[in-house]
């Protein structure tokens, strides 16, 4: 029987990436010198589960690397090593390397082996540098404890137990070889699926052997005949006796990963326990096994029940119920945790589409309802009203399914800022606020890169060196602040710093030098700051590997534009600068103004509309060969006649008969001449490209209440098209 493990790969990668994120976050929170135990445990758990997973799936490179990492973490966890800055750097690097390895494996590309082995070497070096030499697991343990492999190995176990070396010698037990010490009896009955969870009983027993003197008895009762044996399942159970000064917690820690995968009983046994009797029994059982080698199902277990009464006599059973209570508590926590499910984005999109359809159908019915006469018409209308309310609720709920808190994007910055600041020799506090602000997953995915650019810029160019800051009378540590908040139907993301701010004169000088601005042009502050969004423009005196190449701000603006948002800059020399990105909450819906041109209806996104107005003849001038312009608040804006652009027969040709929609795109304003304004509404964006192709000046289409299709205008595209026409 073979199991196709590849079906679990996606889940493994997804979980691993998430786990790495949480590991990174925990590492950043880790205080040097006085680390929080819980944080170290979190980090350890991540390393452990990635190791287990990758070993299960045969990603041996990852497993080997995470093993080294786990060893180091184990030292941290046990407190035998201290967290140093160098170590936290190393661990953060390990996160990067693991991420890179996982990505490579996911993309079925080769792993950068050099990078991995370099870092693995560093990790092992750090472990080796520890004052006390690492405790090696004694070799005999391997012979005694059954391997995860399966049945035949279990034969070796009782044999080993029967031998004089029944108790596993270890670093600890060598010193305390007295078998009459008080200790613990552990009954470990794993469920069949134990191996599938990446747990290895052999390893666990070795760990136990390190704690004290260990006697292992195997129970092969449930072992099926060889022909029916499934090697992927665990059929064995063990009774272990651990003698020595060991806390119950230490034992529980060994079994920590098997939580929920086994039945575990831990009982204290007194010093007077009849170890001799139990040994004899074990020996007897083992002998029975040995004399009948074919008898895999030999009951080795009787040893345990026999030993139990004595234990109970010596120690009240209070321990077991306590353990049960703890397990029950953990189970409750686990149930609470599983309050979410993973759903593929496609399914949600499908749901969104269907709901969009329902909304349209409902709108059609409502329209129809208004025209119906008769006795039941009123009832119908109230029913339709109810339907409309429910529909709106449904739509909002579905929309919310796609919403994620922006912390998914923000969470990468603490690490980035820390690394950058270290590299640039700056002191920077990163402040994050409004992390719980939710926005659409698609928007969220696309806003990450622009934000990275902005934060980098702030750290690199914005915040000054500590000396310069002190000289300017500011605290040595600069602050970079990321904030997200809802503003109406939009979300505003701000990146601000208390650094040097933008140097207006230098930007202008640079722009003049590059002939972006004529020598005598006078620009408003706003226009000057706008220059930093021009491709290839950089005021940095030296190019660093962080920023300064002049690619960036134009890309930032383009990305934000693509999301239907806009970016503003406020800055004050010496005080800092503030970038404000305004984004729509979702890409699936746009607030639009319907306009009529001839018989066609178009939607103009509200975000690009400045205002709408009726023109007076006196406002309009005709420039020879360059079309018409009108005066708008002191500026002259070109008029674009939509009917000309789209070749439609309009109702109004005279500028006075129609309306002008003043729209803004790419930093330019134009007047769009339309026949009439129809109304504002939220429209669901549909792709034109899915079945047709991209159309210049059109960003998509939507379906109106009557089921007909209306095109959504792309204002920047229209402006580009119009200026091309004018130039031609």
């Amino acid at each position, binding site marked *: 029987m073979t199991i196709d493990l590849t079906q679990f790969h996606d889940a493994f990668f997804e979980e691993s990436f998430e786990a790495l994120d949480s590991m990174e976050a925990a590492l950043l929170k880790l205080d040097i010198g006085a680390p929080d135990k819980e944080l170290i445990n979190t980090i350890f758990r991540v390393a452990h589960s990635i190791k287990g997973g990758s070993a299960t799936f045969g990603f041996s490179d990852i497993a080997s690397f995470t093993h080294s990492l786990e060893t180091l973490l184990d030292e941290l966890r046990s407190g035998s090593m201290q967290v140093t800055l160098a170590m936290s750097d190393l661990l953060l690097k390990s996160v990067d390397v693991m991420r890179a390895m996982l990505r490579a494996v996911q993309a079925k590309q080769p792993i950068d082996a050099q990078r991995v082995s370099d870092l693995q070497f560093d990790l092992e070096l750090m472990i080796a540098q520890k004052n006390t030499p690492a405790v090696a697991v004694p070799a005999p343990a391997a012979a005694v404890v059954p391997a995860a492999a399966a049945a035949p190995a279990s034969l070796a176990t009782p044999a080993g137990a029967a031998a004089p070396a029944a108790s596993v010698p270890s670093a600890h037990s060598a010193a305390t070889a007295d078998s009459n010490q008080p200790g613990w009896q552990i009954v470990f009955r794993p469920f069949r699926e134990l191996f599938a969870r990446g747990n290895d009983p052999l390893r666990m027993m070795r760990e136990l052997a390190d704690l004290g003197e260990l006697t292992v008895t195997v129970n092969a009762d449930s072992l099926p005949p060889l022909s029916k044996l499934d090697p992927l399942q665990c059929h064995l159970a063990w009774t272990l006796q651990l003698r020595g000064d060991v806390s119950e917690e230490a034992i529980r820690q060994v079994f920590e990963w098997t939580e929920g995968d086994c039945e575990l009983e831990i009982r204290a046994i007194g010093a007077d326990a009849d170890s001799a009797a139990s040994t004899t029994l074990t020996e007897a059982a083992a002998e029975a096994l040995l004399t009948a080698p074919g008898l895999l199902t030999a009951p080795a277990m009787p040893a345990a029940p026999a030993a139990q009464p004595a234990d109970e006599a010596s120690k009240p059973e209070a321990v077991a119920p306590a353990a049960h209570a703890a397990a029950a508590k953990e189970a409750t926590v686990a149930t609470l945790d599983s309050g979410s499910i993973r759903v593929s984005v496609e399914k949600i999109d499908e749901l969104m589409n269907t709901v969009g359809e329902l909304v349209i159908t409902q709108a059609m019915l409502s329209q129809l309802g208004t025209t119906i006469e008769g006795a039941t018409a009123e009832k119908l209308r109230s029913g339709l009203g109810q339907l409309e309310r429910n529909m709106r609720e449904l739509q909002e709920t579905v929309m919310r399914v796609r919403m994620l808190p922006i912390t998914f994007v923000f969470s990468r910055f603490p690490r980035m800022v820390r690394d950058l600041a270290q590299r640039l020799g700056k002191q920077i506090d990163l402040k994050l606020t409004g992390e719980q602000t939710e926005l659409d997953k698609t928007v969220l995915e696309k806003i990450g890169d622009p934000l990275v650019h902005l934060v980098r810029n702030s750290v690199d160019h914005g915040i000054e060196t500590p000396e310069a800051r002190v000289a300017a009378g500011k605290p040595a540590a600069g602050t970079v602040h990321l904030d997200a908040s809802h503003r109406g139907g939009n979300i505003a993301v701000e990146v601000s710093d208390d650094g040097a701010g933008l140097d207006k004169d230098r930007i202008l000088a640079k722009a003049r030098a590059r002939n972006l601005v004529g020598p005598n042009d006078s620009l408003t502050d706003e226009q000057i700051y706008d220059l930093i969004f021009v491709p290839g423009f950089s005021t940095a005196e030296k190019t660093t590997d962080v920023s300064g190449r002049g690619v960036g701000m134009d890309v930032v603006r383009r990305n934000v534009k693509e999301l239907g948002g806009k970016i503003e800059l406020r800055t004050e020399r010496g005080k800092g600068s503030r970038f404000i990105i305004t984004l729509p909450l979702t890409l699936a819906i746009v607030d639009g103004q319907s306009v009529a041109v001839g018989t066609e209806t178009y939607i103009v996104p509200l975000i690009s509309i400045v205002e709408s107005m009726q023109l007076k003849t006196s406002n309009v001038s005709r420039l020879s060969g360059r079309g018409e312009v009108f005066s708008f608040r002191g500026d002259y804006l070109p008029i674009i006649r939509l009917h000309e652009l*789209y070749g439609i027969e309009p109702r109004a040709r005279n500028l006075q008969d129609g309306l002008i929609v003043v729209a803004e795109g790419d930093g330019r304003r134009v007047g769009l001449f339309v026949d009439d304004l129809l109304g504002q509404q939220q429209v669901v964006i*549909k*792709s034109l490209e899915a079945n*047709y192709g*991209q159309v*210049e000046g059109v960003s998509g*289409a939507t379906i109106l209440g009557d089921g007909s*299709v209306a*095109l959504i205008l792309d204002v920047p595209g229209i402006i580009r098209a119009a200026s*091309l026409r004018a130039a031609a």
Partner: protein
Amino acid sequence: MSSSATKQEQTAGAGSHQVLTFVLGNETYGVDILRVQEIRGWSAVTKIPHAPSHVLGVLNLRGSIVPIVDLRMRFALERAEYTAITVIIVVSVNSAAGRRDFGVVVDGVSDVVDVNSAEVKPAPELGSRSATDFIRGLVPVSDRMVVLLDIDRLIGSDMAAVAGNAADDALAASAA
């Protein structure tokens, strides 16, 4: 594995398949029934700017935006009035960009007929190759000649042109 698949295709090719026939002017055309998504009545379309003249516009087909092509105009036939009995056949087309749905406006739908692949005659060479490129073959059905259309070529090539135009426009815009 691959040889059996090829064999299967051949047997399918050698057998018969069903074709939806429709009338355009005086001619009868046919398309593979498996490509037909839906047949619906005419309703007003929304014009698309800068579209080829035979692309009338787009329609809402259960939530997706589907372009409508007038086959009369595509075949340079005399233009007919669109009336309540004008029919749109929605077909799916495999193009370089994946599966796309299209509506074609025809005069009327006639029938679904079984076509034996052995009876399909290749299209005669008529002047330039591109003029007959989209004809998969000719087949006689009850003393009429049915022109079997290769819709992938007929419409897919159109759409490649549209996409190409858009790309060119974008290029021109960025160059400017």
